[in-house]
């Protein structure tokens, strides 16, 4: 169970389909709260990722890493092995690479070689192809720059390629579902899980504990990521874990401090 912190200008924000952002809080404060509540990992995505904000970002990553004793994946604006080294040194355990991998796929290989594939997360934003004329290929297309730019790449083939290049994990976000709380794209998850032999984290669309059960039991995801339902206290991490356990999914139970 992985809460996601989408960070813009130093604050956790959340919008619908990566737009219409609203302020949800201070990253280290939320990170500590989620870790104590039983989050198994945290994901921190710098969604503004402006190069001039890099120094600020690293400071916030470091404060976030210090505030929670659970694993932290950081992504957003990571373009080079030097960027990755800086993010790891700031306290990240894993680095998510998204747009930069489309521009330069060999970056994944260089990072895996330098830092080990276990800390290289291929972050893929996928959008369902809409076949208006009836001859469009089915499936999902990779989009970058927060969903603003289509790449023409098939998401399933792209996941397979990035894993072959050295990614140790796939963070798979459905842009169609992201922020809608309408449920994960279970078909997308199933297709990617079948294509790769590394852990797949499902993202985009979490609305209820039942959605998370579906992503894992039906989709085959290894973990589920969610943002707004936790930021807004719509569901607790504990209640999600109870639902998962009731569905027969092994979960780490954490006694909640009184």
């Amino acid at each position, binding site marked *: 169970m992985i809460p996601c912190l989408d960070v813009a200008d130093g604050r956790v924000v959340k919008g619908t389909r990566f737009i219409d952002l609203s302020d949800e809080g201070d990253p280290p404060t939320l990170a500590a709260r989620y*870790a104590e509540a039983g989050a*198994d990992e945290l994901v921190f995505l710098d969604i503004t990722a402006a190069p001039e904000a890099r120094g600020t970002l690293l400071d916030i990553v*470091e404060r976030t*890493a*210090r505030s929670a*004793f*659970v*694993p*932290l994946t950081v992504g957003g604006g990571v373009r080079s092995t030097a960027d990755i*080294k800086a993010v*790891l*040194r*700031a*306290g*990240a*355990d*894993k680095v998510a690479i998204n747009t930069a991998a489309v521009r330069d796929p060999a970056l994944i290989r260089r990072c895996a*070689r*330098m*830092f*080990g*594939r*276990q*800390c290289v997360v291929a972050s893929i934003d996928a959008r369902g192809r809409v076949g208006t004329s009836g001859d469009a290929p089915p499936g999902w297309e990779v989009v970058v720059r927060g969903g603003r730019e289509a790449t023409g790449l098939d998401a399933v083939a792209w996941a397979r390629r990035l894993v072959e290049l050295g990614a*140790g*994990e796939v963070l798979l976000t459905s842009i169609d579902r992201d922020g809608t709380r309408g449920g994960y794209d279970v078909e997308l998850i199933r297709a990617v899980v079948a294509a790769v*032999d*590394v*852990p797949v984290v499902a993202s985009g669309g979490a609305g209820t504990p039942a959605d998370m059960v579906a992503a894992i039991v039906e989709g085959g995801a*290894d*973990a589920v990521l969610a943002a707004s339902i936790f930021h807004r206290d719509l569901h607790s991490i504990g209640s999600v874990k109870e639902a998962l356990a009731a569905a027969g999914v092994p979960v*780490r139970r*954490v006694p909640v401090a009184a």
Partner: protein
Amino acid sequence: MVDYGAGNLVSIQHALSRVGATVHEARRPADLVGADVVVVPGVGASRPAMAQLRRHGLDRAITDAVEDGAWYFGVCLGLQLLFERSEEDGAEMLGLLQGSVQRVPDSPRLPHIGWNALERVRDHPLLDGVADGAPAYFVHSFVAAPDDRSMVVAETEHGGRFPSIVASGRVLGIQCHPERSGSDGLRILANLVRLAAPDASAAG
């Protein structure tokens, strides 16, 4: 804490500080003089890690410090570096313990990422107050294969079983990340401080 450019020092530094340790970063051999514990963290691959250690003379400095009575605490890659050679990339390693490093045996899927149980094989002060089977966080593809199985304190299963904690005298290694394993991880680090620097621990 040996800083050789292999990633996440911040979280383990902070976790050790939380349990009462005073942490100094060691980038040169002289930085290790007088340490109660030499902590070798590490995310990444053996060969570049060993190359970095050698470039700064830290490989020899670490083994010298241990011979002079310091404790060694290796985390993840830091455990693996204790052994003689890696089947990951053929790297020659520190060789403080006899054995090799190999891919997790019979694993359904690698890397092994996530929470998994520390199953106690024998009692050790490092696990005082930690329940048998306590969940800990792992991120790795390779594991130690010690020649002498009696050094294994805990095992973990991911497909095959592998040593998740080893201890031989003052030389300790843990495959999971205690700094990322919640309260049980902090307990293990507190036990380390109590073992290796009882005076500091009592004062803290």
